[in-house]
C-alpha cells in the first residue's frame, strides 16, 4: 500500500475524454492525452516536492529497498 493510499480521505471517479484534464488542488494537473484500446496516455504536472511514480514500479522499488535494508546486515560478505 502506498502512503497516498494510507492518507486517502476521499475518492472520486470521473469519466474524461482525450484532451480533457483533472485538477487536484491548485497545483496538480492530470491530463488525458490519448486513449487507444486498453491504454491511456496520461500527463501529470505536479510541484517538484511531489514525486510521481508508476504504482507497480513504486511497489517494486519499495520492496527492493526493504530487502536491501534487511540484507545490509550481511555487509561482511562483500569484499
Amino acid at each position, binding site marked *: 500500500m502506498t502512503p497516498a493510499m494510507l492518507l486517502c480521505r476521499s475518492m472520486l471517479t470521473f469519466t474524461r475524454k482525450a484532451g480533457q484534464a483533472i485538477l487536484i488542488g491548485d497545483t496538480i494537473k492530470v491530463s488525458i492525452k490519448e486513449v487507444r484500446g486498453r491504454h491511456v496516455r496520461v500527463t501529470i504536472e505536479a510541484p517538484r516536492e511531489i514525486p510521481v511514480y508508476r504504482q507497480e*514500479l513504486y511497489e517494486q*522499488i519499495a520492496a527492493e529497498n526493504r530487502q536491501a535494508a534487511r*540484507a545490509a546486515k550481511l555487509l561482511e560478505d562483500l569484499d
Partner: protein
Amino acid sequence: MRIESEQLGPQEIPQESVIRFPHGIVGFPGADRFCVLEVKPGSRFKLLQSTQRPDLAFVVTDPLLVDASYPVDMVHRLGTELGLDPDEPIAVAAIVCIPGAPKRPSANLLAPVAIGARTQIGVQVVLHDSPYQVRHAL
C-alpha cells in the same frame, strides 16, 4: 556529531555531512537523514546510514562500476526535478541488495540515489522507460 550504526558501531561524523532526504527513501517515508560511511579502505561499497535509526542502513556502490555507460546526466536531471541544484556536482549511488549465499549480490540501477554535493540533499529517482532493473548482478 555522534551517531550509531548497527553494522559499524558508534561513529563521529561532521554535522555538515548529514544528507537530508526530503522525500525519504521509497518505502521508508519517515527516514530523511542519512550519512555515507566508509566500510573499509579501498572497498567499492559504502554504507548509507540513517543518522536517526542505527538499524537502518543501505549498502551502496558506484553504478558506473556496474555499467560504465550508466546515464549519470539523466539521474542528475531527474534529481533536479526533486530538489537538487542543476549546477552542483552530484554523487550517484546504487543501493545494493545482499541476499546471502548462494545468491549473488545485486545493485538497483532502476532507482539510484543522487546526492547534491552543495545542498546535501539526497533523492531516490526512478529511471522510468529505461532498460535498467532493480537487480543487476555484481
